[in-house]
């Protein structure tokens, strides 16, 4: 073995050694329980496929599944739109202001989702500050039903997910050479054309990453829809909770969890056709 070969073998050995703890944790703490969950989903007393059959045939579960997808779609589109606008604003700010706005974006990540959801309950109440403000401006004469309804859930979830949209979009925008935008203008393109043909294509990767993140995270939301939503805002994770804690039907809960996992993997697969998976790690 020559010196170069030895060096390469050494590097591989060190890499393997460094990877071992993480791999062990993932194997014991994630892969093993996941396999047990998959086995559980096929162990319903009524037969191996009974739980999946029940999920597929009972109309209530289909409605809940559809509601979950619609909610995830609405929330990710809203997060993306607000995130893009805010990222553009961030680019134009002076360094000092940018740091302050950036802190406002990132700091909420340190506060528990439960606390933030409770705060929204106070803000969105019938007699809460938002409704009083709208009434004082004369925009509404009846308090809007925000809490315990779809708008409340959407607002609460967008608030939680916004940082996950802003970080990849901002990262993509900040990599764009400002000279390109100036050149586009200099060559006679209107602002709209520059946006459509230069800015948007160059930030597409960041947008796709943000869309994948927000959509995946919103598929599994529990606390926010449970506290801010009404009965028709039931999501699949709330259904899983009731299977586990109320009905004590664990095979059914496991089957619903596996379905949710399959949906998430499908989204990642779909996203992978537009962005390489490695790009999902390009945050911040």
């Amino acid at each position, binding site marked *: 073995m020559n010196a170069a070969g030895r060096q390469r073998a050494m590097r591989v050995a060190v890499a393997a050694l460094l990877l071992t703890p993480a791999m062990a944790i993932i194997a014991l703490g994630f892969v093993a329980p996941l396999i047990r969950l998959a086995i559980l989903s096929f162990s319903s007393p009524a037969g191996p496929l009974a739980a999946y059959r029940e999920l597929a045939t*009972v*109309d*209530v579960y289909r*409605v*809940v599944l559809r*509601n979950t997808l619609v909610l995830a779609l609405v929330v990710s589109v809203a997060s993306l739109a607000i995130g893009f606008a805010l990222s553009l604003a961030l680019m134009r700010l002076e360094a000092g202001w940018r740091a302050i706005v950036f802190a406002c974006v990132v700091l909420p990540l340190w506060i528990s989702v439960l606390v933030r959801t409770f705060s929204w309950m106070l803000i969105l*109440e*019938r*007699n809460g500050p938002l409704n009083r403000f709208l009434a004082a401006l004369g925009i509404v004469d009846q308090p809007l*039903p925000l*809490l*315990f309804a779809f708008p409340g859930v959407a607002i609460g979830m967008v608030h939680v997910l916004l940082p996950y949209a802003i970080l990849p979009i901002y990262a993509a925008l900040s990599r764009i050479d400002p000279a390109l935008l100036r050149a586009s203008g200099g060559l006679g393109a209107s602002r709209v054309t520059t946006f459509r043909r230069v800015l948007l294509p160059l930030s597409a990767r960041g947008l796709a990453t943000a869309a994948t993140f927000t959509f995946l995270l919103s598929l599994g939301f529990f606390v926010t829809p*449970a506290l801010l939503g*009404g*009965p*028709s805002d*039931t999501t699949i994770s709330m259904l899983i909770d009731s299977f*586990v*804690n*109320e*009905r*004590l039907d664990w095979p059914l809960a496991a089957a619903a969890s596996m379905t949710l996992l399959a949906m998430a993997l499908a989204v990642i697969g779909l996203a992978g056709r537009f962005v390489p998976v490695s790009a999902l790690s390009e945050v911040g």
Partner: protein
Amino acid sequence: MLTRRHLIAAGAAGAMTSLIGRAQADTTKLTFCSWGGALSDLEKSALLDPFGKTRGFEVVAASPTNYAKLKAMVESGQPEWDLVDVGGRFIWQGADLLETLDMSLIPNAKALDPSWVAPKGIFTSTGATVVAWNTKAFPEGKGPKSWKDFWDVKNFPGPRGLYKPFYYNYEAALLAAGTPHADIYPVTEDKVKLAMDKIRELKPNVKVWWTAGAQPPQLLSTGELAMSSAWSGRVLAIIKENAPVAMTYEDGIAWGNAWVIPKGTPNAKLVMEAINYAISPEAQARLLDLGTYGPVLADAAAKGTPEQRKFIVTAPENIKNMLILNEEQAALYSAKYENDWNRMQLE
């Protein structure tokens, strides 16, 4: 002579005893799990601690009750909880997970109304699901008096709150439809349909489907709701704090807090004796002073002062206008019509 082999044997024996330690009765400690808050405090201090003191064991409180945890504990063969307060219907829903009570260890049960005693659980204190309201929406003397009034959004306008599952709502809806108390049970297809239709009718006015007992008093006191079904003990507790909330026992749905023993607890015999103490006249009398959840023992309820009796579900003047919840029937309709109920909720 102490050899290495002896040491290994001794070590193995030690490990064995510590492994099976939990399977043997540890009579110095009894773990009691309940729903937390005022209820847990009351059950521990009035119904369990005094018995523990005379028998030399300590009552360790856990909360809140969680059926999934209970199932996992029983299936692992090592329940950490010796005694658990559950919703009454769980005596039937969770029958496979519970010890059958040895009534020869619980002679005091003979003094209770038979509706409070079941083969796998005994009710030790009482409460009710009642009509409660915000006193700014309906001032004194103008409040609702029945589930019929609860459904009457013309004369009693304002957003309503109801419990999220079918539980209690089956009874409330039938009472609102004018079904006499004696005809609420047994559950039939026709009665379920009538109840569902009645709830569908009120649904546009139901703003909150609550899941935790703390929600109705909170939402009523802020004015988010004008009227809600609620657990009496929670409402009485918030009224004591001068919140603008009121309730009535009229047309209330009376129930008890059920105690059960997870299958496989090594302390089963001691726990049954503790249950026997909890329903004794001495222990039950302590519930009178606390003014939230009342005694199950009618003799104890009868000894209350007129002021105390106002809050006691089992006081004859209160219970005569109430429906006693049949938990076995509730377990039946909750499971059988769950999908129909969920479908109606999503409409």
